[in-house]
């Protein structure tokens, strides 16, 4: 595990060094954060592929459960403030004592609505965004649905952006309803060219069982270059988790 962490950290360092040498691009990234949703959306009829890989390593509450998600989705600009995504989520899990498995976890549809204009000149400093999603969970043994929602708000002060993201996730089937809260806060500073550095804190809080709560905090970075963008965070576990790295990227076409 220590070796894999060193590889990840050194990988991020190499990416960061490469980004510092890259030419400046005039386009902003989709999100400046790793675990937090951003408030940027595409212009009307824009199209983009977005994806992320996230790890939740050694959640201490469940016999050192480790989980890696790969999420991928097309994103379509319905208008200048609303975009539609059709994500598929694949999950690799490793529970001590069980065989690791890799499977499709869910698929569905997602809407992100930015409540104010995205015009670079006219946009206000305070930008709220609402995200709603409904996904079909295919890992269960019955009709299981996964509704999700986020209220995201960012505030720009010069080169610095502050952001808060309050998310709710439900897993609903015929017999049970599980609710999980996903609160997070972050800061991102435009540093060199289109490279941003910052920090964020993120938590997953199931309401039914407090011992499955985890909290991580750590640095983040983001970079956009022409039609491509990436963002990443390395969450160091503060509670019930060892670490939680996440890498997002997207490419418009």
């Amino acid at each position, binding site marked *: 595990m220590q070796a894999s962490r060193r590889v990840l950290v050194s990988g991020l360092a190499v990416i960061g060094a490469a980004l510092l040498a890259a030419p400046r691009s*005039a*386009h902003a990234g989709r999100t400046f954060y790793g675990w937090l949703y951003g408030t940027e959306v*595409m212009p*009307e009829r824009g199209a983009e592929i977005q994806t992320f890989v996230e790890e939740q390593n050694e959640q201490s509450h469940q016999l050192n459960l480790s989980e890696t998600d790969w999420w991928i989705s097309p994103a379509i600009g319905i208008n200048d403030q609303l975009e539609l995504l059709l994500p598929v989520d694949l999950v690799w899990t490793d529970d001590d004592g069980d065989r690791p498995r890799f499977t499709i976890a869910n698929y569905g549809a997602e809407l992100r609505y930015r409540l104010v204009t995205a*015009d*670079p*000149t*006219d946009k206000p400093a305070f930008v709220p965004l609402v995200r709603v999603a409904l996904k079909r969970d295919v890992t269960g043994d019955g009709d299981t649905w996964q509704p999700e929602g986020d209220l995201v708000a960012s505030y720009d002060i010069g080169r610095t952006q502050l952001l808060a993201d309050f998310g709710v996730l439900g897993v609903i089937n015929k017999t049970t309803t599980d609710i999980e809260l996903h609160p997070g806060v972050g800061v991102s500073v435009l540093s060199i060219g289109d490279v941003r550095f910052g920090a964020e804190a993120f938590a997953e809080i199931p309401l039914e069982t407090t011992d499955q709560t985890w909290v991580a905090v750590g640095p983040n970075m983001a970079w956009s270059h*022409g*039609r491509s963008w990436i963002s990443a965070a390395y969450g160091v576990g503060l509670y019930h988790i060892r670490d939680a790295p996440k890498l997002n990227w997207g490419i418009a076409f």
Partner: protein
Amino acid sequence: MLAALAGVAAAAPTGRVVGKVTITDADGKPVDAEAIIYVVGFTELPTKDAAPTQIAQKNRAFVPDLVAITVGETVTFPNRDAFLHNVFSQSAARKFDLGSFKKDEQKAKDFPDPGVIDVYCNIHPEMAATILVLPNRAHTRRNGDGSYVIAGVPAGTWTVFAYTRRVTKPVSASVTVVAGQDSKVDLTLVRGAEEQHLNKYGEKYHDTGTTTYH
């Protein structure tokens, strides 16, 4: 307060700036092209309730490809072609991206700050236009014979500019406007080649050939 200032400006004694603008290529041969003539040195509010200036997208071109507006005015961009167009600008004075829109749809953009705004289509690299966002209403378009008249210019000493797309260097002259009189200024512009520009992602355009995007 602003209304009062506008009223003062309207009541101030004014004169006209008149003359002729000649456009040539680098070899000195006359070129038939659009040109804007404008006076700077004072500020005015835009004309109240004026209809928005329009730049249409027709036959894979912006029509017209050069307009002048006063700070605070709006430009509309209707698509008159049967396929999708995009309108974007990476000019420092006004960056924007209007997305893609189809035939008979139009989008609008306001321009709150002065500057020279180069506008392109992200789908069709041959499409280019320029918007001059000026601090006052003292601007006009060159007539077919090269002449121009700018009326309602406040008395005083100002600078008059002439601009055409692809101009190789700015051309200007000082002008003293006397109330009730014409002040004559002739200017010559030299027009160069169209500069290559990048798409909205900062990349070179791919060869689009004759492909259309419905």
